[in-house]
């Protein structure tokens, strides 16, 4: 099977089966989600000792906790007794976790604390056994507050895994005048009936907005600006209009960068002169003033000149620093995916900045968004189209002949319309699927 798997990805093309085959999906959960560093959540979601946040790695329910000493853990959400889910609410604060079936009780780091009727078990029953526990993930690490966990006991460290993507995460934090960010403003949970890989494969796709999002672009272009807005509609409409930038814009002003392990980002799409909160906007001017006051003019300028739009950390994370958005991809089945999207508040920024973040989130990540709904339709149509079993190979060759090496060990497209970031994800896919976590140190070039 392993040898066969590498044949699904070839230079400039990928076999349709990796998006439709339940057996391949099961292997992905084991070899990708069971091996790579998987984004779990942000430290601000477990701010205080005892705080917990329940989520999933692949389809496995896990819990991120902060213990009394302030240390963050990620443990499997499964009682060691009869296997019941222990933590049933998404977030909260607890001194310990107690299973509602027979009362087995656990420390926040997952170790077993108390077992009712313990005298009844055989003499060799050891409640201190780390496997008789809410089993802890072998590796948990945080980069500037972003918590990742890996089910692989060994492999590259988190920073090695992230590579040049650390700069994208830095940008999420550095934009806060007080140098700190927090998850705030709720969560969207949107779903579609198609494969999980399609989501990240779309987020840096600069060639689709003018086509897929045409209805919202045209509706926004036709919208009279004198209709009443409390500010939120204004942001939404400006973003929709920007989606209508012609191919020439994407081919001349925007870039796509890719790095080992499947990571990528779309850059130079927005600079702060083009931002929805544009330079002349009084809120944005207040923000710049706050940034300069805390960090100095030079550092503020450096921060504002980072122009990364969507950054994708393969396989389950995408985020965007300029409007403080973060998306987590949860594969549910080979043909079902749920995506959770979060917002961050920049500490020390004007209150209105966060309101703009919310308006922007509603526009691009909202379940009822005028933009995202057409993306969800595309994913659904890809599932339906692939079931036709017509063309056997899917083309991912745009830019294939013109991509260039990047000085930091990656490759970039000559311009943003290159599909280099999809080829790069599939290179990583082949690496994980055929050689496991260890193979990732040797960059694969299956698709590119």
């Amino acid at each position, binding site marked *: 099977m392993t040898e066969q798997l590498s044949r699904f990805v070839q230079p400039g093309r990928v076999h349709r089966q990796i998006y439709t085959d339940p057996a391949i999906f099961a292997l992905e959960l084991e070899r990708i989600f069971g091996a790579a560093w998987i984004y779990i959540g942000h430290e601000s979601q477990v701010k205080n000792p005892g705080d917990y946040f329940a989520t999933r790695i692949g389809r496995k329910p896990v819990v991120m906790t902060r213990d009394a000493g302030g240390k963050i853990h990620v443990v499997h959400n499964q009682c060691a007794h009869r296997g019941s889910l222990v933590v049933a609410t998404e977030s909260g604060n607890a001194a310990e976790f107690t299973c509602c079936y027979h009362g087995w009780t656990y420390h926040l780091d997952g170790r077993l604390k108390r077992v009712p009727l313990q005298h009844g078990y055989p003499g060799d029953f050891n409640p201190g056994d780390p496997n008789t526990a809410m089993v802890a993930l072998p590796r948990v690490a945080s980069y500037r507050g972003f918590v990742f966990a890996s089910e692989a006991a060994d492999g590259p460290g988190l920073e090695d895994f992230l590579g040049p993507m650390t700069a994208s995460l830095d940008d999420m934090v550095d934009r806060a005048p007080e140098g700190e960010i927090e998850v*705030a*403003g*709720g*969560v*969207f*949970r*949107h*779903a*579609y*009936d198609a494969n999980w890989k399609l989501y990240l494969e779309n987020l840096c796709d600069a060639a689709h907005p003018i086509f*897929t999002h*045409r*209805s*919202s672009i*045209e*509706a*926004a272009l*036709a*919208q*009279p*600006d004198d*209709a*009443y*807005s*409390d*500010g*939120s*509609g*204004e942001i*939404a*409409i400006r973003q*929709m209009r920007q989606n209508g930038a012609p191919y020439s814009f994407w081919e001349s002003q925007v870039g796509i960068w890719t790095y080992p392990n499947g990571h990528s980002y779309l850059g130079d799409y927005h600079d702060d002169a083009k931002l929805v909160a544009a330079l002349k906007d009084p809120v944005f001017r207040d923000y710049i003033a706050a940034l300069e006051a805390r960090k100095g003019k030079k550092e503020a300028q450096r921060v504002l000149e980072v122009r990364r739009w969507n950054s994708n950390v393969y396989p389950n994370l995408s985020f965007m620093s300029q409007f403080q958005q973060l998306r987590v991809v949860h594969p549910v089945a080979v043909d079902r995916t*749920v995506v959770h*999207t979060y*917002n961050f508040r920049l500490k020390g920024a004007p209150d209105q900045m*966060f*309101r703009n973040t*919310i*308006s922007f*989130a*509603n526009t691009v*990540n*909202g*379940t*009822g*968004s*005028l933009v*995202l*709904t*057409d993306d*969800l*339709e*595309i994913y659904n*149509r890809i599932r339906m189209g692939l079931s036709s079993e017509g063309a056997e190979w899917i083309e991912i060759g745009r830019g294939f002949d013109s991509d260039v090496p990047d000085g930091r060990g990656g490759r970039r497209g000559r311009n943003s319309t290159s599909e280099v970031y999809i080829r790069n994800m599939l290179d990583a896919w082949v690496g994980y699927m055929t050689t496991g976590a260890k193979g990732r140190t040797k960059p694969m070039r299956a698709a590119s």
Partner: protein
Amino acid sequence: MAKKQRPTRQKRPKPKRSAAPSRRRAARQPRRTARPAAHDPLGLADCERFLLQEARLLDEAKFDDWLALFTPDAWYWVPSQPDQPDPHETVSLIYDDRRLLETRVRRLASPRMYSQEPRSRTSRTIANVTIEEAQPTACTVRSKFVMIEFRRDSQRIFGGTAFHRLVRTENGLRIAWKRVDLVNCDAPMDGITIPF
């Protein structure tokens, strides 16, 4: 092959009578709220009739006519959380100020709105209508709704509580704001394209 029936955008038929409340008729009907008449100029029956008319416009995909029911500074809100306090500090499944609501409705008419190709068909039932708060020319109406949406090959059911702020204008009743609390607002959900 018979063409599937598809909602088309037509001119709204001329209403037989004004949507404005009739004091005379309201006076003849038995009162359904305990409020004294002086504080209840918008009768429950008028409000109910208005909500049914609104639901009918939406079911018939007459979105332009639906938009015309809103005041020029109206907002339309579907929160993402139960008891969500406001639409500015927390994300919403939909939060449209008047300008964005106009854009939303314009997009609904686009043949290139791929998430509405094929179109949805919907069926709404409105019930449990009560007047929560009333002033001489405005009131807040609470109602329960069930909306069945059928599209392509599957059917979804939405349900919850709607709040309408209705104001009397010279053109009849208008919606100053509308809030729709879905019972499953925080569930993982496929895209929402048809307003509730």
